[in-house]
């Protein structure tokens, strides 16, 4: 049984040059979709159909890419909600945040809320899908993984823990079809009050020393690795030392 998977993609921006490209995390969502559904994968984009960077997704081996046509600055949420409600997908994959525009990462959360579906954040791997239930691995910080059981249909975001996207080939990218669909356009009201500006480098946090006297300031400036506070076990047997270490490891919860 193959599953019906939809990947949502957006246009990315190169981190240095700012040039349009396929978005890094969305490409991972496409890659994961291709591994799960193969040819059955549907890829959907809400935006401008004439954007050449969209062809980079087609170059990953897709026959077609559906584009819900919208001008820049339009709200993608109602359009995508309507589309997904009727699409009959069991799994919808997205990147965790856009590389252009606001990039708040709210879209998957709002889609899940509107559709009433569960949402898995940071999907790393789908282990099995059977009887309307999926077992998936979720990526946690520090390289850890957690196994989750989710009812279908569900939404999932992928981040950098998902499989690396395959390269985009030029030939298939030119052969693939971009299928445009007419949809109702709703303006996003964000930019009525907000202003997008080039990122300012953030000031480095200063080390403020609150000392009342010159002697304290001198001490703070010249202090070496602070001693004290640490417990030192000297002249104990190896077993007692090992027990103390083990106790600390268990307290900190790093021993699994």
């Amino acid at each position: 049984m193959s599953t019906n998977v939809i990947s949502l993609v957006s246009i990315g921006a190169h981190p240095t040059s700012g040039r349009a490209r396929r978005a890094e995390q969305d490409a991972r969502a496409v890659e994961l979709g291709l591994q799960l559904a193969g040819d059955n994968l549907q890829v959907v984009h809400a935006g401008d159909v004439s954007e050449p960077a969209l062809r980079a997704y087609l170059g990953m081996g897709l026959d077609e890419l559906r584009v819900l046509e919208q001008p820049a600055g339009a709200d993608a949420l109602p359009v995508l909600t309507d589309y997904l409600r009727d699409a009959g997908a069991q799994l919808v994959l997205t990147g965790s945040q856009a590389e252009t525009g606001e990039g708040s990462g709210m879209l998957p959360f709002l889609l899940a809320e509107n559709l009433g579906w569960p949402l898995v954040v940071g999907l790393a791997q789908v282990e099995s899908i059977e009887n309307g239930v999926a077992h998936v691995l979720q990526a946690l910080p520090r390289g850890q993984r957690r196994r989750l059981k989710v009812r279908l249909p569900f939404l999932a975001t992928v981040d950098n823990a998902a499989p690396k996207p395959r390269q985009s080939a030029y030939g298939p990218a030119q052969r693939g079809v971009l299928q445009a669909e007419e949809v109702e356009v709703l303006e996003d009201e964000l930019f009525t009050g907000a202003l997008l500006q080039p990122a300012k480098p953030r000031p480095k946090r200063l080390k403020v020393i609150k000392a009342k006297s010159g002697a304290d300031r001198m001490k703070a400036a010249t202090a070496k690795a602070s001693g004290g506070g640490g417990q030192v076990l000297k002249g104990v047997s190896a077993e007692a030392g090992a027990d103390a270490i083990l106790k600390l490891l268990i307290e900190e919860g790093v021993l699994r």
Partner: protein
Amino acid sequence: MSDIIRRDPRAEWIARNRLHPLHAAMQPQQQSWMGPSGLVRKNVHGVGFIGPNGIKRIDRSGAQQGGATKRSASVEVQLPLHQVLQPAFYISVVPDMVGGRLSSHDRDLLGLAHQMAGKDGAVLAVVFGEHKESAFETAGVDRLLLLDGNEFSGYSPEQRVQGLRAVDNQFNPRHWLLPDSRSGGGELGRRLAASLGERPATRVWQVKGEECIGRAGAGLQDLARPLARLILAAAECAEPVSETRHEALPVELSTSLVRSLPRIEDLGAVAVDPGAIPMAEAEFIFSGGNGVKDWALFHETAAALGATEGASRVAVDDGFMSRDRQVGASGTWVTARVYVAVGISGAIQHLQGIGACDKVVAINLDPGCDMIKRADLSVIGESSEIFRALIAAVTAYRNGAKRDAA
């Protein structure tokens, strides 16, 4: 500090020198004062000073000027108490509590909340599950709401959002502040935003009056916008609270929470190969240096503990570990929560590399080395013996856990 009473000639000199900046601090406690009824009261125990042989001497010639009291090693500074009796409004903060403690990101967030609450508002911290934090007072928490119950244990984002909605109903906070982090805050905040129908300001790094600035897109742009009700703030968004002490009064929810059937079920953590985790983000590092004599046993211990392996520069130069395992200034700067240093004396370059680690455990033969000064727990002894004892203890612990589960 030892109990031996010693004279401190320098302290005595400072006490005599009225121009010295520390002069006031070195003066003895006031020994006579006017009582409430007008009688002069005297503290006879405070008169005089303790001589070099530990016997109290009283110099009635008038030559003695201070230096009488034995100075304690460190004076506990009592910060002024910031009290909010009748909060006009609440600023609600949901800290990440990684490992059950406030992270530096959480403290920055509480600093921002304190700044936004001003004099009249109260900072309400909502903490899920059990915690190990003891410093809510100095971190700037005015009211503390603990939501513990086994429905919040493990990964339960939907239940937590319900809990936060109940908090929203009862306290109606003016602002919600959550850390925009990968360790839970970013996800919970966005879920809450979607559930409340609020548009959050994300990756906020500065709040100025009624405006906030956050990163947008891939970080090439900033988005300046009016202050949102729900703010997901980046690390170092404000200075942490450092000048006041707060009450951290416990408050409770008046309504009991509805328990919903979770659509996402947590089946627990999955064993990950610790060697495959990048060193810079590994949580638990077992690091070896010059003092390790039996490297086969070192690898065995690391495997038994399930820790990522690290090494000091000496161990790498001698060919016992590969270059990519080196911790320190010219290797990797690690951020582990627990760092075990075996046979590493603690060169300054190595200590720089572990600056971000929470708990450091040192196993070393030399009780005077710099690593022991840095460590939270140090065991002085031969590494190979401690390795064997550790393996035995861990195996016994794991077997015991299995027997309990069965």
